[in-house]
């Protein structure tokens, strides 16, 4: 099983400005002080291996889109995609390339919810214009079709939903059921968020487990219910979890905004004895340095509160691939 992150930012897409790039270059020049490089490849190696990630890279700015590769594409395994944020555009272009190499043109989407930042990529999803593509949109919500059609009404977008050429189906999934879809078994969990959201637990034929849990607030006055969440995260090889705010923000000025914190995510993963946590749905006002600091603090909190096997705390970024 392989997890590929196409969009990791929360709420709103963001892009680096000229001053941000200049700042990164300035930091890189300082770090390279006194060094010379024979060619571009040697300089690239330095940037990749010796600069900290916030200087030599970026966490990216596309909104939620995560691909789960399970089964064997050569045997016809379909695409599995969580959410349709602005990161979906990049996935769609890459999928067209892979389809040209023989990948099945079948796409199974699993929708956490239907807020704008989680569906805005669909009008730009090139495979939706492929008459040979089959797109199945799974959601816990019954109004997924309404949400996708509405954002392509003329007042919002020039291309109507009905003009799309792919065969598009909508399927509503139920909590408590286990579904075999493509090369994975899928279960879902309802979460606390405006208009509700759903987390998904994917298990492949080898027993590898990925949990996708974004846009989920864990309320102070319902902490007893967190045992169910820990069970849903139980023994997962990877939990992709909403860690948008600090705990203090999530219980004060940003309470009821529908999001979780790095601290609660780590506690829930510890409780479920999960193996890895990917910090996800990054706050759009955070710089790369802010996210890197949050990651370092999360790793430290995990160390301070660990009672069992270590939980590996990763920080998701656009382009990250994790093999399980």
């Amino acid at each position: 099983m392989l997890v590929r992150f196409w969009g990791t930012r929360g709420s709103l897409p963001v892009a680096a400005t000229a001053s941000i790039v200049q700042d990164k270059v300035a930091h890189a020049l300082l770090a390279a002080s006194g060094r010379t490089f024979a060619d571009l490849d040697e300089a690239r190696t330095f940037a990749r291996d010796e600069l900290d990630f916030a200087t030599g890279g970026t966490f990216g700015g596309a909104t939620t889109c995560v691909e789960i590769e399970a089964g064997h594409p050569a045997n016809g395994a379909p695409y599995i995609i969580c959410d349709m944020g602005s990161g979906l555009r990049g996935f769609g272009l890459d999928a067209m390339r892979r389809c040209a190499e023989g990948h099945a043109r079948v796409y199974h989407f699993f929708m956490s919810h239907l807020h704008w930042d989680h569906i805005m990529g669909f009008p730009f999803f090139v495979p939706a214009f492929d008459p040979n593509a089959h797109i199945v949109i799974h959601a816990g919500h019954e109004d997924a079709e309404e949400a996708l059609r509405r954002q392509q009404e003329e007042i919002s977008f020039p291309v109507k939903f009905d003009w799309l050429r792919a065969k598009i189906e909508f399927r509503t999934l139920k909590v408590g059921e286990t579904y075999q879809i493509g090369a994975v078994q899928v279960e879902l969990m309802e979460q606390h968020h405006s208009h509700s959201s759903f987390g998904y637990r994917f298990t492949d034929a080898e027993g590898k487990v990925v949990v996708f849990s974004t846009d989920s607030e864990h309320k102070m006055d319902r902490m007893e219910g967190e045992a169910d969440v820990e069970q849903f995260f139980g023994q997962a090889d990877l939990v992709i979890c909403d860690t948008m705010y600090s705990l203090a923000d999530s219980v004060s000025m940003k309470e009821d905004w529908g999001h979780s914190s790095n601290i609660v995510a780590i506690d829930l993963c510890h409780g479920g004895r999960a193996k890895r946590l990917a910090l996800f749905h990054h706050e759009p006002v955070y710089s790369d340095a802010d996210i890197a600091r949050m990651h370092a603090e999360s790793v430290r909190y995990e160390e301070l509160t660990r009672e069992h096997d270590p939980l590996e705390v990763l920080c998701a970024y656009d382009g990250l691939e994790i093999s399980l």
Partner: protein
Amino acid sequence: MQWSSTQHQGCIVASPDGRVDEATAEAFTEHLSSSVALAADSPGKKLIVDFAELDYMSSRGLRALTLAKRQADAAGVAMALARPNEVMREILAISRYDKLFAVTDSIEAAI
């Protein structure tokens, strides 16, 4: 987790002992609530949670502090956290709870 409460210069000083995790968070929450009620009847109308004997606290304990602070605000009680150990000081900083609560190095400084 052990718990004791005393009064210093009109303020209630509540002293948890041990760790606050999933197993003890509920008791911690109840003790905090009782201490807020005690502080509301005290002349200083202040609750100081003495962290000196507290090993560490997970998010459940931190959120219990927030619930207690709401109860305290409604009752006109001020709350402060005193004498955290190095681990707790780090946890308060990582969670940004040091922005929500006054954190002091001594009981006297919290009074």
